[in-house]
């Protein structure tokens, strides 16, 4: 149960798989927000008005997958870092997962990393295909990972293969 471990269950996730019935192709946001907290930047920053929280800012975000273009602006604007973007049409064998990553040093494009699931377990290799760190993101870089198809709803974090202690010391 997410209330006990912080890890959403299959049941939690069933509420947020809009892409299955989606007509539009390509990238789409996955909003993993399961608890009513007073917060609405996802709504106010979405340029397509695809996310609605409404008058009561404690309400859960309502998401319209048909309006979503997968631009990913919401990823770095969510204070809870709870938004991801997936793209099932990335390539024949691979899907794309875009995730927020506030750790240094940033990975390099082309680097192979370990894809981790929501409980931090290694679940597949993943390839870093894009590192986005613009001023508008305000120090929440977005990493795009190419993962084997079928892993796009599993991979939510990653670990670099050679993270040595030295890289952190001043």
């Amino acid at each position, binding site marked *: 149960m997410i209330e*006990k*471990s912080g890890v959403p269950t299959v049941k939690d996730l069933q509420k947020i798989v809009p892409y299955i019935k989606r007509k539009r192709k390509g990238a789409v946001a996955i909003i993993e927000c399961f608890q009513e907290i*007073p917060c609405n930047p996802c709504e106010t920053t979405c340029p397509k008005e695809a996310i609605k929280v409404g008058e009561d*800012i404690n309400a859960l975000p309502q998401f319209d997958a048909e309006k979503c273009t997968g631009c990913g602006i919401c990823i770095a604007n969510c204070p809870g870092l709870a938004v991801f973007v997936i793209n099932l049409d990335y390539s024949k064998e691979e899907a794309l997962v875009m995730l927020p990553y506030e750790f240094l040093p940033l990975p390099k494009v082309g680097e192979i990393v370990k894809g981790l699931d929501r409980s931090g377990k290694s679940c597949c290799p993943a390839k870093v295909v894009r590192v986005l760190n613009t001023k508008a993101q305000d120090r929440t870089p977005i990493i795009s990972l190419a993962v084997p198809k079928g892993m796009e709803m599993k991979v939510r974090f990653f670990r670099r293969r050679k993270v040595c202690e030295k890289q952190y010391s001043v």
Partner: protein
Amino acid sequence: MTDDRTQITEVDSLEPTTELLIIGGGPAGLMAALSASEYGVDITLIDENDRLGGQLIKQTHMFFGSHQEKAGIRGIDIGSQLSAEVKKRGIRVLLNSTVIGYYEGNQIAILQTDRLEKIKTEALVVATGAAENIVSFPNNDLPGVYGAGAVQTLMNVYGVRPGKRVLMVGSGNIGLIVSYQLLQAGVSVVAVIEALPKIGGYLVHASKIARTGVPILVSHTIKEAIGKEEVEGAVIVKIDKNWRLIAGTEKKLKIDTICLAVGLSPLTEILWQAGCEMYYIPELGGHVAWHNEDMETSVQGIYVAGDVSGIEEASTAMLEGQLAGLAAAESIKNLSLDKEKAQVRERLSLLRAGPFGEKPRIGKQKLQISADKISQD
């Protein structure tokens, strides 16, 4: 990461009298100063630290709330913005200055590095915040046992890592956020333990650390710290729903740091001294001063705002500060600011409308009920 912290380090000279004295330069005190300054009030803002911002200077995460409460902006940047605005408006700021006493006629004693000063004020906003709670367990006095605030200060203010392997005790927002900050600093968080059967803070914060592989263990407590000269380990144990330790479930963890994030208590000394009516309200974190919907206590002209009026969080502290500042300005300058106050109250109740607002909502209600009871007796 950029370092654009606006710091106010120079101290303004102290005037013997002021219209509004604000104790505490955190989110509540800063907002009280800014809102009262709109109406030409002569303000003196006091803080015991060497810079303004209170706990905001350690908050690296983006704030929740709505656009009006600066949602999506990191706490540290909110602190800088508010401090810069205080400076721009020429509000008198006394840093490294500790209020040590309240005397009749709104005379306040202030300890500055090597001097004792006093100041007379027409009105007072007490925005002193809170102190961290502690849990008792064998060896909790070993070096390596920290409060979460100290860990944040070490890392985020001074750039010092507190240890290499940390056990976090408490899964409220502070425990979860500080765990995340430890991970960002390259420290490993061995586990987050929580005595209650469910996570106390926002689940989004919990998920952020869970996906890095940190286990969050609910219904667990710390049995003892291990070590001679310093922390070398800890024993954690499961507890049942009656808070009893379950024998045989002990686990020994190899760690060098224990971080306690087990709640806060309002820092109310000055309010007791001023003779404010005080009530013990568990939902508000301990003893708090009775206050009306203008944040005014039972002593006319003394207002409270932020954690000292009931433990909550920075967004509501800012709004309470704003409200106290408006109410103080109203009384000092003989104005009517009902419309402005109503707007702030409206935003406060919107923030408190959800499940996380329940505790403060109930707490503030109980505070009124307790006071009504006493006045009837």
